[in-house]
């Protein structure tokens, strides 16, 4: 066998592992994709017997479903923007200023993600009731932001830490005021990290179901929330169509971000030390 001869046994084993990994990783996705376009598909068959776009037209023609899609994207965009505005200064502070409770603050961000989500949401819901935020758009945005604070602080903070003090100081020396230094030097250098954080935030908001369900139902139904009812009420094909629509932005965004981040500053790190 040519492969065995050129690469030897170790490579073969690596190859098998790679195949298994691909199967494990992409198998479910492929299955989902097939299911979304299936008209009739029974268990032992590898491919569907009949292909159809019926459920696609069903989903795309149902007004409430389409509206939920728009709502999801709108919320994700707003959440990303607001948490960007809140978190970037905080992230910079964490990276630069040595204040006493720095570790404690960073740790507290982790804590919000350590508890079972539902418990946290219920506690928040009680608070929201008192503040009349239940069943409001603001409430949903708030609960999403609570979720995304962690990425939006941790990741950019690490990116800011990679900007060396001497690089900022050199810019000061060159005649730039502190604000200009931040705008022209620090921010662009941390950009890859910030973009990654934004993508994470956008996606986690897009896929958030529990908190939205608790705070938004029945007035505000985003895609993931509606997904539950679709899975319960319709054949699996409808769920598959919906999942594909929900997964698509994830894949597109990740690829776009990778390309953008990769082509830009990432590759231009220093060779020296």
């Amino acid at each position, binding site marked *: 066998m040519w492969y065995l001869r050129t690469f030897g046994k170790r490579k073969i084993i690596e190859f098998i592992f790679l195949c298994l990994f691909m199967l494990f990783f992409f198998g479910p996705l492929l299955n989902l994709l097939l299911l979304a376009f299936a008209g009739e598909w029974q268990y032992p068959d590898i491919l569907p017997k009949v292909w159809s776009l019926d459920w696609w037209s069903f989903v795309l023609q149902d007004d409430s479903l389409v509206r939920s899609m728009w709502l999801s994207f709108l919320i994700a965009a707003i959440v990303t923007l607001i948490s960007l505005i809140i978190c970037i200064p905080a992230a910079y502070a964490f990276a630069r200023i040595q204040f006493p409770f720095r570790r404690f603050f960073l740790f507290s961000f982790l804590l919000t993600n350590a508890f079972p989500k539902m418990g946290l949401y219920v506690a928040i819901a009680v608070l929201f009731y008192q503040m009349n935020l239940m069943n409001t758009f603001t409430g949903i945005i708030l609960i999403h932001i609570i979720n995304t604070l962690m990425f939006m602080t941790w990741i950019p903070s690490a990116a800011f830490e990679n900007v*060396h003090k*001497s690089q900022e100081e050199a*810019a000061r*020396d060159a005649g730039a005021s502190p604000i200009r230094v931040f705008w*022209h030097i620090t921010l662009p*250098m941390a950009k890859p990290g910030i973009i990654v954080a934004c993508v994470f935030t956008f996606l986690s908001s897009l896929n958030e179901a529990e908190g939205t369900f608790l705070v938004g139902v029945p007035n505000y139904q985003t895609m993931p929330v509606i997904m539950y009812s679709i899975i319960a009420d319709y054949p699996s094909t409808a769920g598959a169509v919906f999942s594909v629509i929900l997964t698509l932005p994830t894949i597109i965004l990740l690829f776009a971000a990778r390309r953008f981040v990769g082509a830009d500053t990432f590759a*231009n790190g*220093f060779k020296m030390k």
Partner: protein
Amino acid sequence: MTIKLSIENLSKIYPTGEGVQNIDFHVNEGELVTLLGPSGCGKTTVLRSVGGFIDPTSGAIKISNKEVHHLPSEKRPSAMVFQSYNLWPHMTVFDNLAFSLKLKKVKKKEIQMKVEEVLTLVHLTGMEKKYPSELSGGQQQRIALARALLLEPEVLLLDEPFSALDAKLRHELREELREIQSKRNLTMLFVTHDQEEALSISDKIVVMNNGHIEQIDNPQEVYNAPNSLFVAQFIGRMNFIKGKSVNNTIQIGDLTFIHNDAYTGDVTIGIRPEDIQLATANTRNIEAQIDKIMMLGHFAEITLKTMIGSLKMFVDRQQMEQFVLKSTIPIQLNNFLVFKETGEVLNNRRMEVYENI
């Protein structure tokens, strides 16, 4: 000569209690002054105070006779080259260099011209479109220097700019820096912990130790007439022999060292290896047994056993035949210095006689 930079009674005490104290020296126009000292002695602290990156606790810093210590760094007529991470990785070489000019709203054509000119000066023509990551360490430091030069600073500050480079490149850049300095009549304050570097490029060396200045002199003087045991140990090589001085004499074995300043107490005698030579006359000879020979390129370091202790001397490669391991030779000491117990030199001027009884 006009004084360009003067540092007056500068102190910086960090919250940890460390820092520098009573730093007082000046740099004349067109001079290259080096801050030399071991790690942690406070060189960077002084330099960064001048650049405006540290707030001094007390004291004054003047550039061209104007107080600058209350100004932020962007308003000071100084420019700094750091040890590493000088360049902005998301900008090309051109943009790195043009940054300050764009801030000053210099015309595009003129920016182009100035960048080209400074690139020629640092021998990196045609590198405009490269990113810092595409440059070698030495090239990066050259660009950093070029960027600092474009600021047309009254004082150029350099904090161990070559210490991350290999020895050969360090030599090269050192020479280039000296060339550029004389071409542009630059005033420079240069930080290094490398005594060889300091001796080779400086007009004046400020030797620092533990947060204070030990000695300010030109390289010759610092080497020939160190004014403390610390400077003698830190710069060049030196043999040290412990002894006791009574008035003007120090008796060690059969040898009597005579010095000018009357002093009674424990002392250390310092002798440079190159001041030990094969005896040429019959008087004042010391018998020495050759204990070890170490070849160090164009010269050898020879360890001698003598009645006053173990001594090291340097011998040219050409004269090596006269030195045979374990043989005994007569040597003479051409110079020595005497240091008090406190480390202070007893007589700053070298001289001194010794007698063999």
